[in-house]
């Protein structure tokens, strides 16, 4: 046998043979990706460095059985900072691909299609940043119809499709239209006058606050401010904004990530587009555009969002915007 050639194909080799996997062995465990990653805010066990380590040590079974391998949403915050130039999200995708081939399934929530309501218009497929939705032909009520189907391995449950669907036929668990409405109204927030203080509704994405202090500050805002956390600013359906304004909210602030830092690749751009359209509509019908605001927070911007909300409240108080 030749020394230079390997005959046994290990798990590590298999991952390295996948597109994006080739630089795996460069990793020297500096942990830059781990601390850059925002997923450990919601899932403290998630550690991309450790997953790469497990692959390098050929721990096939343990890797696939680790529920955290499905978490990476390819936001690529880590990759530009990796001193070894490892495309971590592509590596994670390579691991997922092999896992899917071996019959493993993502335990994470995904989008769900209500096939009864769906008209097969295909807007969702175009909106999805992951290509997780595709139209398939199905027989429903004896009729052959085209409806979208979710690829569970690709869907990251960002809810961009749900916001895009004109028929509310697609939704993501925990962030359905009903649940978001319930969060806005909880404690009869819309009905109470709050002593005449102008009410501010904030739709905040789950990933734009890196600092612990900022996350704490968001929980301690005055009662006339309501923060509704959505997975992504792309989840915000313009109808949420309109119905809130109708119900007497003085201003709605939608906060997403800086473009290029979006946890779901395109969500913040999609939200930006939607809010822009909303502003155009407001201008056409003569409504005050300053009542709907959109902001993109960079991952290094400590303290910006809480300060911005307090400034908005102060501005509304001084301007005495008449409550509709």
């Amino acid at each position: 046998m030749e020394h230079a050639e390997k005959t046994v194909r290990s798990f590590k080799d298999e991952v390295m043979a996948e597109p994006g996997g080739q630089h795996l062995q460069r990793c020297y465990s500096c942990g830059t990706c781990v601390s850059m990653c925002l997923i450990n805010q919601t899932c403290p066990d998630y550690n991309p460095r450790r997953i790469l380590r497990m692959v390098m040590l050929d721990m096939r079974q343990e890797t696939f059985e680790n529920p955290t391998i499905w978490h990476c949403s390819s936001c690529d915050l880590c990759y530009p900072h990796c001193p070894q130039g490892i495309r971590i999200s592509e590596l994670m995708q390579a691991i997922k691909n092999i896992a899917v081939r071996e019959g493993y399934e993502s335990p994470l929530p995904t989008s769900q299609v209500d096939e009864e309501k769906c008209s097969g218009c295909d807007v969702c497929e175009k909106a999805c940043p992951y290509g997780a939705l595709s139209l398939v032909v199905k027989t429903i009520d004896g009729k052959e119809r085209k409806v979208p189907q979710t690829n569970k391995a690709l869907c990251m449950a960002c809810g961009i499709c749900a916001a895009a669907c004109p028929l509310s036929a697609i939704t993501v668990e925990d962030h359905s239209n009903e649940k978001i409405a319930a969060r806005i109204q909880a404690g009869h927030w819309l009905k109470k006058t709050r002593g005449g203080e102008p009410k501010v509704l904030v739709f905040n994405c789950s990933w734009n606050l890196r600092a612990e202090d900022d996350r704490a500050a968001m929980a301690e805002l005055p009662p006339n401010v309501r923060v509704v956390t959505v997975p992504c600013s792309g989840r915000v359906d313009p109808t949420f904004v309109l119905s809130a304004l109708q119900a007497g909210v003085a201003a709605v602030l939608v906060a997403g990530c800086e473009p290029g830092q979006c946890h779901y690749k395109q969500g913040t751009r999609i939200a930006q587009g939607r809010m822009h359209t909303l502003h155009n509509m407001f201008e056409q019908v003569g409504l005050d555009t300053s009542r709907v605001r959109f902001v993109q927070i960079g991952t290094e911007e400590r303290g910006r969002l809480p300060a911005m909300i307090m400034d908005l409240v102060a501005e509304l108080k001084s301007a005495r915007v008449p409550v509709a």
Partner: protein
Amino acid sequence: MVDAARHPNITVMSYTEVKRVEGFIGNFKVLVEEKPRYVNMDRCNGCGACSPVCPIEIPNEFEEGIAPRKAIYIPHAQAVPLRYVIDLDACIHCYKCVDACGKLDAIDFSQQPRQQWLDIGSILVATGFDNFDPSVIKEYGFGRYPNVITAMELERINNSAGPTAGRIMRPSDGKFPNKISFIQCVGSRDERYNLYCSGFCCMYTIKNAVQWKQTHPDADITIFYMDIRTPSKGYEEFYRRTREMGIRFIQGRPSIITEDTKTGNLFIQAEDVGLGRTIELESEMVILSTAAIPRIDTDAMGSVLNISRSPDGFFMEYHPKLRPVDSPTDGVFLCGAAQGPKDIPASVAQGSAAASRAARILNADEWEIEPIVAMVWEDRCISAQGKKCGICATKCPYNAITVETGKAAVVTSAKCHGCGGCVAECPHNAITQKHFTDAQVIAQLHALLKHEPEKKVLAFMCHWCSYGGADNAGTSHFEYPASQRGLRVMCSARMDQDFVYEAFRLGAGMVLVSGCHPQDCHYITGQRVGAERFEKLTKRLVDLGISPQRFRVEWISAAEGAKYAQVIREMDGALRKIDPQALKEEIERTRPELERRVRRLPEIPEVARALELAKV
């Protein structure tokens, strides 16, 4: 430095640039240009009366820009020689310094650059290093957050002769920071900037931390590191003592620093690898240990001295293990960080070694060189016949050949290193290389291809890399087919295209030309000379009707034994796949044209005899 300035045999020429270097080992002619100081060196006594009256204040380079300096200044307090200089870009010509200088009358605005040629025996390059600018690493916020500073800035703040008189204060508010963090490997061990480890940052960071802790025992000090590298004598013990002093070491490379705009404090985010969890650490000041990088003018200096750079950008040594102090050009020696990042003891050791290497030359009347130098047959050189040529001079990596139309080319033996590039490139076969003459190589070629040449893989190997690679394949037991026949020359530059034609004429089944990877070439640019030739040759051989798989060019380092074996295996495999009858036909078909190409070989001295002997 003061000792050097006082030494009767040492002349210090400060503020002077090397413009040109001619000649060779022991006999260099060096053109230097002394820049105008606008201060008369003989009259100025360094009293310093001029500087305080100067109204101009600009950032002081020596103080890392933290403190100002005047337009008339000395670089730093210990400067040798202690003579002032006027920065004419900043000067407004108010002439207050002239008044202050008074009777000494040392200031002279009429000074011009002065050039002079010097006779020099040997040259030492001790140009040092630059510091990496961390502002390009956006996530650390240097230049954006005032309290993120470099280790060099800390050195100045911490220095009792520095701008704060040794009182440590942070830039944003001048307060003493009690909670500080050091970040290691900023711009080094990072493929985005510099792949290498600077080697001495670990030690100076530990030193800074210890100093801080000794003067401020309550200070909360953290060092973020990937690996602590303390390989020299006594270093690890120092590191251990530092840990015992209560300085916190966190293994983990910070990914991002955010700033609280109200307090100016910094929040460092990193994974504590030992803990396996992300932490956010608040610090009042962050100090970045930046990479040591090659001096900005390394390229210009290298072309003046005719010395090359390694892939990391520092000057390349002659041999990394056996001649680490010598440069590729004889008589030029490297010391300190100009050759690669190193700490003080290593710089001192290399400096002393370089000085003694250089002194050998100064004390010798004669100098022994390698005997494999190039030699011109004056009667064959067309330059001697008044025709314009000079190809040999353009291919020489050492500028060892001078060509003057009307005279034969002249090889300065002392500068020649024996790569053989000129020999292979000369279109009139007017140059030869001693011990690697055309006759000798052709004799070997004939011997190697004497029996069943169509079944052989003929491999031309360069002495330093691919021959080493073949050797490595042997010592590492990487097997390759016995059909390989090796022919060693000094450099791929020596592999004359006529040798390849001759090999195919003799019916060689396969021909491999192999040499160093471009950055490893032992003869600075020899590999490039060869590579250029083989690129053209590949096309020519195809035009001749030789199947493309029969000729291969590979760059194989001395460590790549496995690659060498692999290449030979592949070539042997490819040869076996060719139908023997078809191969025979191809050899016969191409022979007349090949014969035409090498028809002038027997004109070269000794070659005819070699061919004669080969027939026997």
